[in-house]
């Protein structure tokens, strides 16, 4: 029998995938609009909104002053009165300026109002280090928002996820924060042309394995796959899981995996201490304690702000080699 023919693929960049999601969403629903700094005329500093102004006009692609509180509040007020806004916070590091709007207003309004409001708001932002943007333009702060009931948080790991998760986020009637990663912008992968959703709250087993589980988010998914290849030489058969949605987290899929493999670690770009890996690790040890043959490890950035100097930044950001080394360290040596 002949092998099944591979279906034709359409390669699209991560940037393109996000932009395509926006365009298709805006075509589908006139209540969707995008608001933020430099999103309209400039097409966003990351290029994700290029072409949207020409197609949809300035009413729906709105440039703002540098006023994160105002931008977030505008998104909230619009979402509470029937629209479906996408609010762009240029760099995730700027969320500090609108923390109250996100944490005290957006996240809580539905609950405080006894459910009598619907906030179909999407917050789009860019995280990640490795581009010499230094401490205030390079953070990954997803852990902060996973901690706030009322918000959902997703973190795409590639172009396919970037489009599918953005569509799901905008379609969702809840506030969803979509955290894209700057260093993934150039990645290319097959992205279907049609409008599609990746279901929120469902993890994806990227690579099946039998004796070690790596839970990775964002760009660390790519790095973990590389690490898995390295570790295969040592006889390890690593299963890599991409949660895709951080809140709500698909505990079940991860726990099932660890019950099978007995060993696990979590890899993320964010600072290791208090990173979201700590929550995942706690859940794993709670639900799969009797199946663990080794402590649950975490790979994250060291406990410092992101350094500027390139060799220091290179040290700082986790990569495949670090992940593989941590796996070996947890196992003592290779069994």
């Amino acid at each position: 029998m002949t092998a099944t023919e591979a279906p034709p693929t359409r390669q699209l960049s991560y940037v393109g995938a996000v932009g395509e999601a926006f365009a298709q969403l805006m075509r589908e629903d006139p209540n969707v609009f995008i608001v933020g700094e430099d999103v309209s005329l400039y097409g966003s500093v990351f290029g994700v909104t290029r072409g949207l102004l020409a197609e949809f006009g300035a009413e729906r692609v709105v440039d703002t002053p540098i006023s994160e509180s105002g931008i977030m509040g505008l998104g909230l007020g619009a979402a509470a009165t029937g629209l479906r806004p996408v609010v762009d916070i240029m760099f995730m590091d700027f969320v500090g300026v609108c923390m109250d709007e996100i944490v005290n207003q957006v996240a809580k309004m539905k609950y405080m109002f006894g459910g009598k409001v619907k906030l179909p708001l999407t917050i789009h932002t860019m995280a990640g280090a490795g581009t010499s943007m230094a401490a205030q333009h390079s953070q990954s702060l997803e852990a902060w928002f996973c901690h706030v009931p009322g918000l959902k948080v997703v973190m795409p790991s590639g172009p396919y996820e970037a489009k599918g998760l953005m569509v799901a986020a905008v379609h969702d009637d809840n506030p969803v924060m979509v955290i894209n990663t700057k260093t993934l912008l150039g990645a290319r992968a097959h992205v279907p042309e049609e409008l599609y959703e990746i279901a929120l709250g469902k993890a994806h087993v990227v690579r099946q394995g039998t004796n070690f589980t790596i839970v990775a988010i964002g760009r660390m998914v790519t790095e973990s796959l590389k690490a898995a290849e390295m570790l295969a030489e040592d006889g390890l058969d690593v299963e890599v899981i991409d949660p895709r949605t951080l809140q709500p987290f698909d505990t079940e899929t991860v726990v099932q995996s660890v019950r099978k493999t007995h060993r696990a670690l979590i890899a993320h770009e964010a600072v290791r201490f208090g990173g979201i890996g700590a929550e995942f690790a706690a859940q794993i040890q709670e639900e799969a304690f009797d199946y663990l043959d080794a402590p649950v490890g975490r790979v994250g950035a060291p406990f410092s702000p992101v350094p500027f100097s390139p060799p220091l930044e290179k040290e700082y950001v986790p990569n495949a080699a670090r992940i593989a080394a941590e796996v070996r360290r947890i196992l003592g040596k290779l069994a």
Partner: protein
Amino acid sequence: MPTEVLLLKAGMTMREGAVAEWHVPDGGEVHTGQPLYRMETEKISIEVEAEASGVVCHAVEAGATVAPGALIAYILADGEPLPPGVRSLPNAAAVPGKGADARPPTTGAQEIAASPLARRLAKEAGVPLASIRGTGPGGRIIEDDVRAATGAGPADPWREIAASPLARQLAARAGLDLTSVQGTGPGGRITREDVEAATSVQPPQAPPAALAPAANHHPGDRIPLRGMRKVIAERMHASLQDMAQLTMGMTVVMDEAVKLRSQLADEWGPQGIRPSYTDLVIKAVAKALTQYPRLNATVGDDAIELVGKIDLGMAVALVDGLVVPVIRGADRLGLREIARESNRLANAAREGRLGIDEMAGSTFSITALGMNGVDFFTPIVNPPNVAILGVGRIHDGVAWDGDRPLKRQEMTLSLTIDHRAIDGVPGADFLGAVRDLLEAPYRLLI
């Protein structure tokens, strides 16, 4: 040699039991036949007598819950020492209210580093941790150490065999034992090509399992319960344990179906589609399920959830195993599409090319043993479904017109239902609906 006292196994399904109470204290004397401990399981409470005389040395405390057959005590003959490496429990701490400053002396066991998994495995096997040598980081006892100590063999024997992950996956799906495969990759690593070569020894259109295993196995062989075999074993056992299964048979007059199938085979043959009787049954089931959605359901904790879609699992026998690929949306497919799809999936299954997504999520399953000469059988429901239909063989039967015998073709359908979700009568109604469709099979073409 000290006599080992192992926890009594009471009944086939007993999973664990507690030593509720010791009737002889640690260090006390006991005679054969004297009550030694009381065991409690969730079903029973039973007094267990000593089978030897001597000094009792507890290996577990009162209240401890262990697996049946686990070591719970030793009975030492006069002057006999404990087996080396085994330390006795501190019985002093067991006496309650001894005084505020009675600090329990530390057991050796608490100072031993062992992974949670290793602890559990050791406990289940009744092997004291103190007797196991740890090879993990810092001398920690890990899973492999426990397995070595219990003679269970390495946890993941495949780790000892160099094989690429893809090769492992393909081998697992094909139910292939990697130890039997010759590796041609670097350093003798087993590659995907090696696995494909090994599985292609069976011709793609091989007849179902009936004869093949006999050629591969010999008396005295030990077939490890791993991979697909293990999965099947666990699932089948769990299915029977978790559900209340009831099977009913019904005879179907197949004359019209035989004619129809023959016609369709002629018509579709040139396009490479071979319709089978099972395909007719699949279509009949799909149609009948739209009338009887209760059989297309899942049992949850406190509700029966009817599933919106009809995805029919079709059991395909392999060399040494069984897979159940799924025909999705069978109610929306015509008979031709079903035949084409079932062909495709069966071939893919036998070649080990089925994707995970092609095997997951059936809402109702169909299994056929007719070609193996079976008339009626009790198929086991494929969890989380609530029913499964078995197809028997078509054979000559007799109907009576007064005193005159009439020859006709008959086939028995065997429907197993989960009685938690479906009662006998609705099940029989559904089965009757399937029969009616098969007996007037032109309805399957509509």
